[in-house]
């Protein structure tokens, strides 16, 4: 296998006049989990579609598992697993049959597909739902089934578009656990998400995309270290008489933000600044110190306004 699982150079996607992806470069290495972060409309899903060979690139080069994306589409798709954002299971047949029918598209013999389907149902903890119809499944079960389905061809690269959107915390943690276990088995994971916690939990490296471009790239830790301060002090709903004092502290922080309901102070020395904040007439429970997160980077880079 090639050294990088996916490699893009000046990758561009145009829809008529609109440029959805504007000449991006990135590498996904073998045996890593790589995350595309970004607000809706950033070009993440478009990029994933080009990687999964369901959309042809307009320009640039894109190689997937050492093959040319789109031109070698059939071969690439044979070695890829795709977990879509929307449920697109066959509603009319059972959980088990969904897997077996899907396996056929990959020319997998029935005697291989049956046992593999049973195995994967156990892997995603759906073995007792084997004979259920799809409409009886919860959102989390459907997502786990979609993951099992994407694994039927034993893919080298698993592409997941917002794998846990809309799931409850239990289901989300179960999905994360399964994805980590796949990674240990050597499957390259490629996912889009706008849950920064998900990216921190799963991804070895991330890129943050915005308006068709990649703004930053690196491990979650690196990205946080290089694009936001290590600590953040939040002050919720400060009373009017504290405003002037808070505004004065702005210069003491490396960056400060005044939002509708709170102040945010980004700082390298949280304790020092915290004691100064505490000297103001504030309810102590409205002030707290936390570490910098990917979400801070994300919001700093892509803005707080609604983007669509």
């Amino acid at each position, binding site marked *: 296998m090639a050294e990088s699982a996916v490699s893009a150079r000046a990758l561009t996607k145009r829809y008529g006049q609109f440029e959805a992806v504007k000449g991006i470069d990135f590498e996904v290495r073998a045996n890593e989990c790589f995350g595309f972060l970004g607000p809706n409309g950033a070009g993440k899903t478009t990029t994933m579609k080009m990687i999964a060979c369901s959309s042809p690139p307009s320009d640039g080069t894109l190689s997937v598992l050492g093959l040319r994306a789109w031109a070698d589409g059939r071969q690439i798709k044979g070695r890829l697993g795709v977990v*879509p954002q929307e449920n*697109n299971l066959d509603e009319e047949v059972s959980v088990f049959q969904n897997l077996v029918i899907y396996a056929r598209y990959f020319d997998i013999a029935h005697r291989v597909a049956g046992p593999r389907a049973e195995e994967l149902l156990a892997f995603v903890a759906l073995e007792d739902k084997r004979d259920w119809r799809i409409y009886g499944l919860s959102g989390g079960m459907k997502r786990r089934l979609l993951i099992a389905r994407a694994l039927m061809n034993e893919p080298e690269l698993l592409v997941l578009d917002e794998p846990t959107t809309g799931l409850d915390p239990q289901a989300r943690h179960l999905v994360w656990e399964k994805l980590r276990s796949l990674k240990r088995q050597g499957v390259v994971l490629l996912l889009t998400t706008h849950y920064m916690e998900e990216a921190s939990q799963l991804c070895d490296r991330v890129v943050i995309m915005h308006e068709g471009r990649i703004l930053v790239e690196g491990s979650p830790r690196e990205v946080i270290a290089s694009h936001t301060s290590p600590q953040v002090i939040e002050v919720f709903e400060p009373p009017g008489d504290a405003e002037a004092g808070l505004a004065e502290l702005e210069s003491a922080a490396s960056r400060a933000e005044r939002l509708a309901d709170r102040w945010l102070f980004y700082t390298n020395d949280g304790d020092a600044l915290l004691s100064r904040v505490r000297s103001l007439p504030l309810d102590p429970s409205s002030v707290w110190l936390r570490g910098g997160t990917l979400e801070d980077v994300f919001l700093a880079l892509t803005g707080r306004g609604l983007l669509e």
Partner: protein
Amino acid sequence: MARTATAVHPTAQRGLLRDVFRVPDVRLSAAWHLWQRDAAIYRRTYKLNILPNFFEPFLYLLAMGLGLGAYLSKIQGTRYIDFIAPGLVATASMYGASFEVTFNCFVKMQFGKIYDAVMSTPLTIEDIGLGEMLWSTTRSLIYGCVFLAIASTFGVVHSWLAIFAPLAVGLTGIMFSVIGLSFTAVIPLIDYFTYYWTMFITPMFLFSGIFFPLDKLPHAVRVVAWFVPLHQSVDLMRALILDGDAGAALASALWILVFTAALFVLPMNLLRRRLVK
């Protein structure tokens, strides 16, 4: 790995016509897998579906053939039921294929997002299009042959050429698969099928010479009728089942073959234009 801008623009420089009639990226073995998917799902419901299949032709033959036929003198020298039965076989085949490639395919594509799922496997959208046409042709064979079997118990088969009728049913099925799937590939909303059925299928059903012969109508009408797909199917069926006229059967079969072959790649390319962006 080198890739130029022109190589990746599938449609930019091409005319629309060249694009919709281009050679599709299709493999029969891949299309067959989609046929198997459709068949697996049909198998779950066929017992429910096949019964109306038996009833419908029975009711038509009973009401029109025997009921109305009782008031009619012989038509072109045969019983009325003998006259209409071949055309109803053609109609059953048309309906069988048309339901499948219109409503069923649209629901799969638009609401179930099934094609998106299948396109993330080694199948191309063109494979999916061909697979759907193969499956809808299979449905038309089931409809048409069941109808023919029931009709034959009314003694409407008068020629040994009727052994070729299943072939004619299949030809009719694939022709209406091509037409219907092309329509499905371009409409934005499911409501547009009302137009397909009330302005295309139903008028054809009424004016293709199933219930009355067209040879007494003005010349201009007969010229128009020659271009109507179902009319050719009806002529083909009548030549095989009633008249035993091999020459007439061949002429109609050839018409259907040429028409179907000319448009064969259209639905696959239209689906590609719709779903591959």
